[in-house]
């Protein structure tokens, strides 16, 4: 790699190694290097932690073979059928079947657009960040395959504004790909033309909602659009637009090369493949772990090194701040199982909380986040989150009233199912599960007239005030003194 490029990417291989905090071997361990991980989208990152993001390494490792195969040997419809057969579902949160979404785009309307939702803002989620920073070529290859499948000649990567390193690497990767003829006119010598435009957001969680993302991309206030029409029919600039998540696209090269059956060897019938889980909270080794869909939450906890020493598990957020809480690890991590359990897989952010966590504070932090990030478009989300925060603040500060718990549940009922977009619903789900599962703790706050938890437990409170769109609110605090190699449970 030329020197200047290396500078632009933020350092030499050695420096980057330092940034990751150790040698390749050590990093492998630190990034969850146990045998239980099953890596599709994280494979290259895992195998080449020093330079997985460079085009030299990526191409050497086989990048763009899938895209080349699709464009030079397959019809667009064949690609769509293959992806449908693989059962790949969206990894951004909703889990909609990717091939089916593609097939909604009208065949005879041009231009069509691919938009990558790389605006990872769900509190607790940091998988797309790693994928974008460390394997941008996998994303570009995935975009190329999707663009070929729906015959889009232009793609936009909507990159979260805070991803400074990630956006630099994506920018570099895109120009490298152009240089090698993987993008631009005549991709792989075919007639197919593809242009990729990298766009950085400005720090709004709502812009991760696909239609708000499109408004923001067009230069308007980021606010969700009325549906129908759905983006696949009328999206960016009124044209058919497929919005896919970074991790979803990352699965495509291997699916093209190795087939649907290969992909289906992992996961469940309805949720095939793997999922990158961003594990954080009071665990010993917070990191991204790629595991087969349906892996038990207990195994995930074990991968992450278990709870910090001397503490016990109290609650789990299984799929980002929007997901209702769980209290047990006895559950399979796939779309259906979590839905049955009254929660959701969401973006795959798993936050483990131990007994030092005040659930009123947890509810407050989460609701504050949603209040701060509400776009203000619809009444229930705008006013409901505002009200929820006010009530939770009172309870936490010792001014709670006995009827407040029912009031909070009423507020949740007033938002859930009535908000314009899922942001409001999510705020209600999260708050409701806190009150329902830990009602005694709320009542204790009221009857004591103060928070019964130690101040140290406030580690989760107020962290979001550092700015940005707030995944820091429940980001892991590295456990001091935790053994780095221990796999023990408290």
């Amino acid at each position, binding site marked *: 790699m030329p020197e200047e490029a290396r500078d632009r990417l933020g350092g030499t291989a050695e420096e980057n190694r330092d940034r990751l905090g150790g040698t390749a071997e050590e990093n492998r361990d630190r990034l969850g290097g146990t045998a239980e991980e099953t890596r599709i989208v994280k494979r290259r990152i895992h195998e080449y932690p020093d330079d997985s993001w460079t085009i030299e390494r990526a191409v050497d490792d086989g990048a763009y073979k899938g895209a080349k195969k699709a464009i030079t040997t397959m019809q667009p419809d064949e690609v769509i059928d293959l992806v449908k057969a693989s059962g790949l579902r969206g990894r951004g949160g909703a889990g909609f079947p990717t091939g089916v979404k593609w097939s909604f785009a009208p065949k005879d309307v041009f231009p069509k657009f691919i938009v990558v939702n790389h605006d990872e803002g769900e509190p607790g989620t940091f998988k797309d960040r790693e994928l974008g920073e460390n394997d941008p070529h996998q994303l570009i290859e995935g975009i190329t395959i999707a663009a070929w499948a729906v015959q889009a000649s232009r793609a936009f990567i909507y990159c979260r504004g805070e991803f400074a390193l990630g956006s630099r690497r994506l920018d570099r990767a895109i120009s490298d790909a152009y240089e090698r003829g993987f993008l631009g006119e005549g991709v792989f010598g075919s007639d197919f033309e593809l242009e990729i435009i990298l766009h950085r957001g400005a720090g709004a969680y*709502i812009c991760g909602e696909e239609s708000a993302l499109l408004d923001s991309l067009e230069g308007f*206030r980021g606010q969700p659009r009325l549906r129908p029409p759905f983006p696949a029919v009328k999206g960016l600039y009124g044209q058919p637009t497929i919005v896919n998540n970074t991790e979803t696209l990352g699965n495509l090269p291997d699916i093209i090369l190795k087939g649907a059956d290969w992909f289906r060897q992992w996961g469940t019938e309805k949720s095939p493949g793997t999922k990158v889980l961003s594990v954080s909270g009071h665990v010993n080794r917070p990191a991204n772990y790629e595991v087969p869909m349906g892996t038990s939450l207990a195994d995930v906890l074990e991968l992450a090194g278990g709870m910090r020493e001397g503490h016990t598990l109290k609650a789990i957020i299984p799929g980002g701040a929007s997901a209702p809480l769980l209290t047990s690890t006895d559950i399979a991590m796939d779309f259906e199982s979590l839905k049955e359990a009254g929660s959701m897989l969401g973006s795959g952010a798993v936050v483990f909380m131990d007994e030092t966590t005040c659930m009123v504070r947890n509810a407050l932090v989460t609701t504050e986040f949603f209040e701060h990030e*509400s776009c*203000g478009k619809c*009444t229930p989300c*705008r006013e*409901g989150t*505002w009200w929820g925060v*006010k009530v939770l603040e009172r309870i936490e500060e010792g001014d709670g009233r006995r009827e407040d718990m029912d009031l909070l549940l009423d507020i949740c009922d007033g938002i859930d199912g*009535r908000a314009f977009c899922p942001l409001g619903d999510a705020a209600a789900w999260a708050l409701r599960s806190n009150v329902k599962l830990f009602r005694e703790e709320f009542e204790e706050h009221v009857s004591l007239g103060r928070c019964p938890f130690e101040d140290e437990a406030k580690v989760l409170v107020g962290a979001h005030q550092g700015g940005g769109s707030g995944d820091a609110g429940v980001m892991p605090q590295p456990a001091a003194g935790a053994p780095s190699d221990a796999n023990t449970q408290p």
Partner: protein
Amino acid sequence: MTTNGRVKVTINGQTVEAEPGRLLIDVAEEMGIFIPRFCYHPGMKSVAVCRMCLVAVEGMPKLAPACATPVAADMEVNTVDEQAVDAQKGMLEFLLINHPLDCPICDRGGECPLQDQTYAHGPGSSRYVEPKRTYEKALEISDLVVLDRERCVLCWRCVRFSDEIAGDQFIQLVDRGPGTQILTFNDEPFDSYFSGNTIQICPVGALTSKPYRFVSRPWDLVSAPSICAYCSVGCPLTNDVRGGQLVRTQALPNENVNDFWTCDKGRFGYHYVSSEDRLTTPLIRNRKQEFEPVSWGEAVGAATGPLSAGRRVGVIAGGHLTTEDAYGVARLAKKTIGTPHVDSRLQDAGAPYELALEVSDAAGSTATITDLESARTIVWVGPDPKETLPVLYLRLRQAWGDHDTKLIVISARRISLDGFATHVVRCDPGGEALALQGLMDGSELPAASDVGDPLVVCWGPSSPGRDETGIFGAVIELVKAKGAKLLMCPPHAGSQGLIDMGVHPTLDAGYKPARAPGLDTRGILQSAADGELDTLLLVGADPIADFPDSELATRALAGGVFVVAVEILPTESLAYADVVLPSAAYAEREGTFTNLERRLQKLQPVLPPPGSAIEPWKICARLAAAMGDNWGLPDFDDVWTAINADVPSHSGLQADHLRNQPVTPAPYYESGFEGETSSRTIVAGPGGQYPHGHRGGSPFQTGQNWPLSWELRAFEAKQRPGLIPSVPARNGNGAPHVRGSSPPSTAARAPGRFALYSGRLIYDEGAMVSRTTALRGIQKKPFVEMHPDDVKELELSDGDSVVVESDGGAAELRIIVSDIARGAIFVPYDQEGLRANRLIRGASPTVALRKP
């Protein structure tokens, strides 16, 4: 699906057939089921943000917003289902947690959709105990609009109006989440010609009218429907009176005319009606040359002799007279007095409206305003409609925006329509006719193939005093050649009615060619100045201010003629009057205005006229009676009986059709209120009797009226009478005519001379609008628009002063460099400090320019 393509929909157990795709909220409302709402407005696209209209739809997992849910076959809807009612209550509780309960001092209190719907659907009390959101109070975002952000429920109606309808985004959402607020950008003023509409559609008191702020409680108002007296669009309005003063006007919706809107001139320009200098009693000039109040008998007696001079009498009528007044003026002039010298064209002097007879049986439009929306192409030749016919501008914009209509603009200078026109032809001064011919033969526009069916050609006199015969003649040829419809746009509310009734030198009532053509306005004034006339009768006419040659008008009045003037306000011309007869203003009388599409719309009185003022047609009848010609027409019904008999084109219209039935208020839809309060009378009683609460009456008339949210007033609009049918002429009417002469281009121009274009701006020194202080405050300062190369040639630049000189006078004006044809300049007609009619001479006025 039924056989007629409609679908069966069941709402609350009632089944109806509806067009598929129509919005549930509309279909329900037509069935009499009111679904509460804040953000939904039938004139704008749905956004479904307030979530107030959530209803239960069978088979849908969640409640659906009725404003964004199209009806589909066999849809079953429940609007009063337990869940839906719970959602409505919940949404109101959410909206109220941050809404200040300052209803007792809020202008909206009493006619507030939030208040109404809270009564009907809301929870009785709030569980919110924390402090409410506050903002800096009462931001004056313009001279007309005041904003109280803490009252706002963020329905976006104002923002959407600015974006979708007016096309000027002066007002926007800023910040996000619970901090979201409505604001103007960068503290710039809300500088829109249509800003008042946002006040009216605001479902709370967040946007209020500065002139009306704290003036009245709605239940103290006496209201009557009326028609705007300014331009020829004829927006339906309600006039609200408190303590004998006209204190507010609001738009009444009529989808055929104004949709839901009116301009700020129509909305705020009402102060002249209750102005202190209204003429209240007849006046005659005494020997000391002073005006002396006299009785009607004396004044009429003084006028009778001079008016009996037959053909030596000239009659000029102004554009704000009603159709009945026009009938009275024409009958008085042509029959009683016996003079053919009668005209109503002042600022539009030289506009050959009669040419329209070549394409139909009427000297008027063959197109309606709604035809603009079904047209594929619209051609516009005329003034800037945003300044002179503001709501027509909105309708043109709507045609372009919602219906993808192509718009071709032919103009010597940049006008507001250029912003969204498909093609703009920037013709030479006077070259409009050539451009139109080019449009016809395809030479002017490479894309003339876009001129497709249905085609509507709009024409209005583009510059005061210009001879438009060539231009309108070319328009008529285009209409004939393409089988197009014509939308003829005379300037004022009364202009078309005056033509129809024969206040015209060459046309008698019903467009019959006059047997003995008389003099037009210019001819009358010239003859008066030359001493060839003895008497001038001015009915609502102010030639010195309005006629595009002020000097000629002054000479005419100041000469030896006896001047009889019928007026509502003192004007410049009045200074030369010998007899002054006070007349009633539009809010004080019955009558009809005929708008530019020849739609007759009725006025209802809400006030008595001041003093002994009466309607101009009654004044004409009195003068006639004094001259021995007793018409015997005591009231509105009688004058229509006479019009039916005398005016063939209007023979089918009955006074009954024109009269608004006294409105029986519909169920109180905005709130769902039912009961005693909803059955109160809200308009003036039948027969033109004045309601209680008029001038001199008690200011408190709470028992008489019940205030209503504007939506309810909409029900009245549906009662309005229809158009006068017009019959298109049999195709062609023969070979193309070559008419008049309009010096086509710069070639004809003497070196150093510039073609002078002028036109009224929306707010100017007109006698009516200038009585509203707020509008006078935002009047533009005089300026001159010039082509950049012309400016450069004079070695001047944008913003510099230049002296504009004509035979009539000179004015030093600030230069605005603009997209205007070379060799042409534009000066506004009547701004403070500039009377363009002092510069205009003749039918092709030119001026010289020099450095100051």
